């Protein structure tokens, strides 16, 4: 027994160490950085000064005051959460029927359909976004066709590129598999006798879904929603390429602080808020998923 529990700890040591070194430690460093001054040429200024044999700490609350001093960042957070919620909902509405259809199809076609869901992962994420840029471009076939139709009805031309719509389409496109896979994993395990029993006891098609399938799939819905919501919340590549000037999200601002503005402390402040928001969503989600 003793040896057995030892081996259990030994096996979990590498992943624990990995998480400690590459997740917990950086988060703490980031938290610390949010109280420091930016360095003269980027990076961070020293956090203590050795002067006349005396040690003085050089820390500040200025970065946090800057966050709270204006509503720009709050609005950016709200906007990012809005994109994340919308993308999650659209992914769920589109992903649920798909996952249900795959879970209820025959063993053979199931494997093929799952393969098709994962297929986009075979090519690079950025390459796929560039593809969307071509599709949405003002001289692209889609935009020209749409404007041709609009013209027939006397409506003015529209641009798809650099619009919230383009961003949402792309956000949903990229994250749909993350919704479908956990949902499928959940739905596939459902005991179909329960549906027969519900029908036998008088439940029609819709009641069978809402009273049996849906409540039993909540943990899958939660898992899928977390997997979509969190990456969308911090997304910067899609708004960078498809969002235009109005389309920036909080992720872009954070990236800006670290790259262009070279203000690491303020970048750290925004990152901390983003991390705490994400953790709060996960905790809330797992609470909901566990509920009977």
């Amino acid at each position: 027994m003793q040896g057995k529990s030892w081996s259990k700890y030994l096996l979990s040591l590498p992943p624990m160490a990995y998480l400690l070194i590459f997740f917990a430690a950086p988060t703490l460093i980031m938290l610390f950085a949010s109280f420091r001054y930016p360095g003269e040429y980027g990076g961070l200024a020293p956090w203590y000064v050795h002067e006349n044999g005396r040690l003085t700490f050089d820390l500040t609350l200025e970065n946090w005051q800057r966050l709270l001093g204006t509503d720009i960042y709050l609005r950016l957070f709200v906007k990012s959460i809005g994109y994340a919620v919308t993308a999650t909902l659209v992914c769920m509405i589109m992903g649920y029927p798909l996952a249900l259809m795959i879970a209820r199809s025959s063993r053979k076609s199931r494997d093929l359909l799952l393969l098709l869901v994962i297929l986009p992962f075979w090519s690079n994420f950025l390459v796929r976004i560039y593809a969307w840029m071509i599709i949405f471009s003002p001289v692209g076939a889609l935009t020209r066709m749409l404007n041709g139709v609009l013209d027939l009805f006397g409506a003015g031309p529209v641009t798809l590129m650099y619009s919230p719509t383009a961003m949402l389409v792309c956000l949903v496109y990229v994250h749909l598999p993350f919704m479908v896979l956990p949902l499928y994993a959940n739905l596939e395990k459902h005991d179909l006798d329960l549906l027969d029993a519900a029908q036998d006891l008088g439940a029609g098609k819709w009641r069978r879904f809402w009273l049996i399938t849906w409540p039993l799939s909540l943990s899958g819905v939660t898992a899928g929603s977390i997997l979509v919501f969190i990456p969308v919340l911090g997304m910067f590549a899609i708004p960078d390429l498809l969002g235009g000037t109005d389309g920036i999200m909080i992720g872009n601002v954070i990236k800006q602080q670290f790259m262009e503005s070279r203000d690491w402390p303020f970048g750290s402040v925004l990152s901390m808020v983003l991390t705490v928001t994400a953790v709060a969503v996960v905790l809330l989600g797992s609470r909901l998923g566990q509920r009977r």
Partner: protein
Amino acid sequence: MEITELLEIVDVSRHFNAFVALDKVSLHIEAGEFFTLLGPSGCGKTTLLRLIAGFDQPDGGDILLDGKSILAAPPERRPLHTIFQNYALFPHMTVAENIAFPLRMAGIAKKEIKARVAQALEDVRLPDKARHYPDALSGGQKQRIAIARALVNRPRLLLLDEPLSALDAKLREQMQIELINLQKDIGITFIYVTHDQGEALALSHRIAVMDSGKIVQVDVPERLYGFPNSRFVADFIGKCNLLAGLVREQQGDDVIVELDGLGPVHVCRSEAKFAAGSRCALTLRPEKIRIAAAIVKSTDDESHFTGHVHDLLYLGDVTVYIVTLANGLLLEALLANSASGRTNFFEVGDQVEVAWSCDAGHLVLD
């Protein structure tokens, strides 16, 4: 004459591609009856149950409830419920919510639902489990909740699909007694599917034995056991010695049969008529064979043979002796271990005599 016929199954067939699951099956089930469909796995009994419940549609024939076809009605509109093999309790609902489900579906007022659920829980003697979730219940409790849920809105018919197969032997026996009493009390017709012949004999008013999509025999348990109509039924229900032979002559209900390798024996009280020269099998239950070191032949009506104990199975209350007769034929005989302190009356290799009276066996066509 009072019409008590509840369910009528007329020439129902069901094919799965080339496989014939049900072949022109006809049955009449009366109101208040405990009716069992018995057969080996793959005989079509579960297919028939699913057709009655409405989960599947027959390829031919009709199913009538109170004289009206129910084939057009989907399962949710048929006034009958099913108890599933694994009970199919909804895991995300409490016991009370599970039982309330059919009442909710029927749109009954909340107040009445509450009262009826409480009554149903009383009836199955689990009133304190209302707020529990199914996974906190034992197998027997789940079973009782499934029954309470299926009976709470008084269906015309209850279909039970091997409901006791998940329980251990002791609990199974207890649940059998509960089922019998329950069915007697509420008077709802039960159609029970099982492959366990002992269960079928213990529970049912009537049993339909099925094989390869056909009904082989429908009868009350005692007749099925005592007077099987075929080699299949004799072999499937209980233990049975099957001795092949040739009918030599029949006079009234007395038949003389030339058993292969054993010679002529007298079979009396035969119900069926056999033409001389037809192949038949004598079905002999092990408990109807007398076995002793030496048997005084009491009457001419007794068949009498000598053999050796080939094998024995000590079962505690009884011992099963497998006896080799002179021609190498194996015969199974049963002896109650009535003497205290002794295990078996005979050992392997002992010479024994076996005998049976002329009305012990029953002849079937082979």
